[in-house]
């Protein structure tokens, strides 16, 4: 029976391919692209302000509202700024960490560090953000209690807290690709650079950084897009801070078409980002 199946599959390459790809394709088309399409279509619908029902009629009013209201422009710029800041902070923290893990640490320490980087990913997102809440709580929080005596105070809940929280959350997604890239980087390239007279900083700029750029891009796609879409961290440690995600979240129950319109923005930004990444050629070496 099994022999027959494998025989007939062997003779029909097309059938073999169908069997292999049908499940993932179905998932991709129905669950992913389907949902995305529904979302995008509903962005052109509107809501009956009297009954609260969705009116399935094509209109551009949502987009007109979004582009004319300065409040939304501010939210977009603020969210973009936060996503960029988080990505930069993650980069600055992850590069030395990844370098240490891949090139300096002994194999045993390296395994331990990889485990340590991964462990936070197993903990619940909410737990981690609530623990940051208790860290950053003005006056009674851990930061004020521990560092207050030496003059360092918690920034309180707001944009700084959100950047800290998101940096903490997404840092592993930056460290891991950088670590992988750093491990692939042959040691003798670093030796060769030193041998040719380059000091460490020169070697970093001319050899390590360019070769690590694809990994950096891979990591930044996580840190940037995850920050762009966040709405929970903002609610818990952002104070009154509004990000794109929280605007979508707030409109979700009262005006679904408008929420869909707003969600266009991060999707478009990510589209532009991916296009730029593609044009930079960074993905060709991945």
């Amino acid at each position, binding site marked *: 029976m099994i022999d027959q199946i494998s025989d007939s599959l062997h003779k029909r390459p097309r059938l073999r391919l169908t069997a292999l790809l049908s499940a993932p394709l179905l998932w991709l088309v129905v669950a992913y692209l389907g949902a995305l399409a529904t979302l995008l279509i509903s962005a052109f619908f509107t809501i009956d302000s009297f009954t609260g029902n969705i009116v399935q009629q094509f209109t551009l009013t949502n987009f007109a509202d979004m582009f004319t209201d300065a409040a939304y422009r501010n939210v977009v710029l603020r969210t973009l700024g936060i996503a960029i800041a988080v990505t930069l902070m993650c980069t600055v923290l992850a590069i030395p960490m990844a370098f240490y893990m891949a090139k300096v640490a002994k194999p045993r320490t390296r395994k331990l560090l990889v485990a340590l980087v991964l462990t936070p990913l197993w903990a619940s997102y909410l737990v981690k953000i609530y623990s940051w809440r208790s860290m950053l709580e003005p006056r009674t929080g851990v930061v004020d209690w521990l560092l207050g005596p030496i003059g360092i105070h918690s920034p309180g809940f707001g944009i700084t807290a959100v950047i800290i929280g998101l940096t903490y959350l997404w840092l592993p997604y930056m460290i891991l690709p950088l670590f992988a890239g750093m491990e692939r980087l*042959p040691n*003798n*390239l670093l*030796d*060769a*650079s*030193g*041998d*040719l*007279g*380059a*000091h460490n900083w*020169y070697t970093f700029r*001319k*050899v390590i950084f*360019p*070769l690590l750029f694809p990994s950096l891009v891979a990591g930044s796609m996580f840190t940037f897009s995850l920050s762009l879409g966040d709405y929970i961290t903002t609610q818990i440690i952002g104070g009154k801070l509004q990000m794109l995600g929280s605007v979508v979240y707030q409109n979700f129950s009262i005006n679904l078409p408008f929420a869909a319109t707003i969600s266009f923005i991060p999707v478009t930004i990510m589209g532009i980002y991916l296009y730029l990444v593609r044009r930079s050629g960074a993905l060709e070496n991945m």
Partner: protein
Amino acid sequence: MPKPVIVSLKSISRSFGSVRAVDNVSLEIFAGEFITLLGPSGSGKTTVLRMIAGFEKPDSGSIFISDKDVSQLAPYDRDVNTVFQDYALFPHMDVVTNIEYGLRVKGIEKSERRTRALHALEQVRLSGFENRKPSQLSGGQRQRVALARALVNRPSVLLLDEPLGALDLKLREQMQFELKELQRAVGITFIFVTHDQEEALTMSDRIAVFNQGKIEQLGTPAEIYSAPQTAFVSEFVGQINKMDMDGARINVRPEHITTSKNAHNLGRSVNGVVRDIIFAGAITRYLIDTDKGFSLISTKALDALNVGDPVTASWEREREFHVQK
């Protein structure tokens, strides 16, 4: 007149964990010579080279380059350049940018940089390849670029870490010849690391044979080959028959053993039977099972021999290396 010493190693040692990779090595290298550090893998030769380059620091002892103690200096403060085993070309730079790298670090102005890089490329006979990426080059071409990238800096010493190891036989033989020519032309001291004894014999002015972190013997290729001072050297360099005779271990090279169907004696002889005849182009190897219980290889036959022929193998006593067991 003694030649000036350019690199001097004074009792250097280096351990990795419990392994003593380099054990109290002293060596004087003369300006302009082609010296080879020869030995099996793990014998310490590469570690010595890496210590001269500055990638490793000796645990004890000191290293002098041009009379300056460089033991604690970083690689970028030493007047040496290295050609790496797998070339270590920067994959994101084209050929000419790779070659210019060292000059750019030193802040040499652009037009001079380009002139010198193109000249170096010409020296390794790769003109016209300046805008290729390393990935678009063959192994032999990468090798030449690596060489040009090192030579363009005009170092006083060039270190070569098994640079021909990854090339196929034909190309390797051609590069051996070219390297030697190049060394004569530029007059730079070459310190060459290899595990290939034939390569060492072909190219070197002097050879230092390494074993277990120590130099077993230092000498010209002729001295190393014809007058090995230790059992290890006689066995590592060239082919050798290891024979237990008269209660002693005697080593004799195959080309010094004459085989004949007739009884003859040049000093010492054994009787045996031809077990196999291996034709290898320029030479033919006769594998002989002796009646003393060991086998030997001879490459000199006085008669036309066939497998199964009873023969006498004989050699002069001065061709023997007596080895302490």
